[in-house]
C-alpha cells in the first residue's frame, strides 16, 4: 500500500525525499504568498527546497487572501 501525506486535508501519494517545493508542484500551488506548516511546524520559504517531508505528515499550505 502506498504511503500518503495529507495536504490541506487532502490525501496525496508520498514520495521518497519529498520536499515542500515538490508538494507545491504536485498540488499545482503556484500562488506565492503561502504559509507552509508540516505537523504544525512552520517551514520558512528558504527551506522549501531542502525540507523533506516524512510519510503520513500533515501538511498545511495556507494561501493568504489576495484578490482586488
Amino acid at each position, binding site marked *: 500500500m502506498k504511503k500518503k501525506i495529507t495536504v490541506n486535508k487532502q490525501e496525496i501519494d508520498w514520495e521518497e525525499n519529498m520536499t515542500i517545493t515538490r508538494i507545491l508542484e504536485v498540488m499545482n500551488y503556484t500562488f506565492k504568498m503561502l*504559509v507552509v506548516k508540516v505537523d504544525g511546524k512552520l517551514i520558512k520559504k528558504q527551506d522549501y527546497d531542502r525540507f523533506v517531508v516524512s510519510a503520513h505528515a500533515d501538511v498545511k499550505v495556507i494561501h493568504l487572501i489576495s*484578490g482586488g
Partner: protein
Amino acid sequence: MIKINIDGKKTEVQNGTTILSAAKKLGIDIPTLCHQPTVEAYDACRLCVVDVTDGKKTKMVTSCNYPIRKEIEVDTKSDKVIKTRKTLIEMMLSRWPNVRAIKNLAGEYEVEKPRMKHPKIDYNPNACILCGLCVNACSEIMWEDIIGFAGRGDKRKVVMPFEEHNIACVGCSTCENICPTGAIKMVEDPNSPVDGARIKKYGYNVTKEMAQLDADQCDMRGVGTAHLAEIMDDYDLLPTMNYQYGSHNDTPNISSPVFKKKYFTQGLPDGCYLGCSMACAKTAEGFELKTGPYKGEKVLVDGPEYETVGGCGSNLGIFDPEFILESNFYCDTYGLDTISYATSTAFAMECFEHGILNKERTGGLDLRFGNKEAAMEVLHQMARGEGFGVTIGQGIRRMKKIFAEEYDLTDAQIDFMQDIGMECKGMEYSEYVTKESLAQQGGYGLALKGAQHDEAWLIFMDMVNKQIPTFKDKAEALHYFPMFRTWFGLMGLCKLPWNDVEPIDNAETDEPAKVPAHLEGYVNFFSGMTGKEIDKFELIRQSERVYNFQRVFNYRLGFGTREHDAIPYRSAGPVTIKEYESRSERYDKELEEKWDYDISGKTTEEKRDYLRKMREDAYEKLCDAVYKRRGWDSNGVPTLEKMQELKMDIPEVKKVLAK
C-alpha cells in the same frame, strides 16, 4: 555558481552577486554609509573599498557595486584598504565632525583628529553627508524625482528643483526615513494629522516592504493585478465562457508575462493615491486601435487589470491580449465598466449558443464565444445606443426579462437564463469562479451592493486551505472580512497595501490571513490622524454601524432581504451536463463522500440534479448562519436589538424596522 575567497573564508555565490552581499552572508563586516539593500548601490562614500585579486593582479574596488563574475580573492582588511578608509573617514570628519555615524566610524578606525581643515566645516550633528540615499530612494522606491543633487564640489547639496518647494512632493517621508543622519525633516503635512510621526512610521514600513518583498510576492509594481490571470487559471478559478469552466489551455496568451513583455510601457506611479509605492496601475502606450471611432490611432490604454483580463478575455472565450486592450480602452473611453460589459456579453453569448438568441434577434451579430469582432461591435453599439448593444447594455437582470417577454421561450429556457445569468441584486459578477467555495458564493450573494468580491474574497481560505469548514466558520469569515473591508471605504483608503504585500514574518503570526501587522498599522493610521484611540475591535465596530445602516437602507427601499441574496446556480455548481462532465471526478467524489449518495448506475443528469439540491440547500444554511452572526433575523433584516447594541437605533431606523 562561482567560487570566491573572502578574508580566507571560502564560499560559492551566484554570478552577479556583489562582494558586499557575499561578505555579509559570511558574517564579514564592511563599513558603509551610503548603502541600503532597497536602493541601487551608488558608491558615494567609498568606505566599502576592498582589495580584489584576480589571478596575479590586485586592485581596489568598491564592494557595494562590484559584481562577482569569476573566481576571485577578496581582502577586506589589507593595510592599503584600512589606510584608504581612514583617509576617507578623516576627510568626512573634517567636514562633519559631529555627525554620529561618522564619529562612530572614526572611533572604530582610531581616527582621532583630522589632519586637514575643511573650508565648509559643518558642526550640525544632523548634517547632510551627501550619501545620496534620499535621492535614490525617491527615484527608485517612489518612482519620483522630487529631490536631486545640485552644485559641485563643496557646493554640492540635496535640493528640490531651483531650491523651491516641489508641489509634486506628497510628504511620503521615504527620504526622511532612509537618511542616516537625520538631515531631512518633514516640516509640513497638508493633512494636519494629530500625530504625523505615528502614521509615517507605518507608511514607511509598507514602503520598505514594497521595495524589498514585492518582486517575490505579487509583483504589483511590475504587473499590477494582472498577475492573477495565470494564478486563477492554475486553481481552476478563471472564469471561462460565462463561468462554465475555471481554466483554459490558451490562458498563457493573456497572462501577465505577455502584457509585461509586449505591452506595458510605463513603470511610473499612476497617481491614483499620491505617495503610494505600490503603484499597481499599468499602462500600454502607443497601442494601435483596430476598430471604432479612433480606428488607426495610437492610444494609451490604462490597464488592463485582472478583472478586465478575465472578463474581456477568458470569460468571452477570447484569448487575445489585443482584444483585451482594445475593449479596455473603449470601455474607459465610453464610460463603461469592463466587468459589467464583459459579464453581460458572456451571458448573451451563452444564450446565443443555446438558441435563446440567434442572428435575427441580435441584428446579425454572430455572438458565439470567441468571436472578438462581434464582442467588439457590441461594445461600440452600446456606446452609440444602437442595435443589440442597447439590449446587452442594460445588463443581465433586464436582459433576462426582455428575452422572456419578447421571445417565445420555453419554461426550461427561462429557467436556464436564471441559472446562467451571473448577477445578484442586478449587479454583474466580477471575475472569479465560485462553484467550489460556498463561502465565496456568500461573498458575492451576501454583499450589500450586489455581486462584488470586494467585501470578501474567501476562495483560498475556503476551497484551497480548508480553514473554514463549518457553517459557523464561514459565517465568521463573512462577518469579519466584509466589516474590515468596508472600513477601507469609510476611510477612503485602498485595500491593496493591506494584503497584496505582506511583512516577511507574517507567516509566523497567529492570524496570517488578517495580516496583523498591517491591521495594527491601520489602527495607528486612524488614531494618528484623528487623535482618537481605537483598537482592532473598534475598527470593526465602526464598519458594523455603517454596514447595518446600509442593510436597513436597502430594506427600506424594498431590498435587503433573503430573496435578494439569492444567487444564480452557476455560481454554486454545474448547470449543464457538459459542465458536470468536465469535472465529473470532483463532483462524483463530493456526492459519494460528502453527501453519501450512491452514484452507481446514475446518469449525469441525475447526479447533477442531486448535487444541485445539496449545494442549494447548503447556500440557504450559509445564509442562516451569516444572518445569525451579523445579528439579523432569518429573513436577513437587522434586528432592533442589533441596532441598539451598535447605538444605531435612531428614530428613522426604528421606524423602518417596525414595519
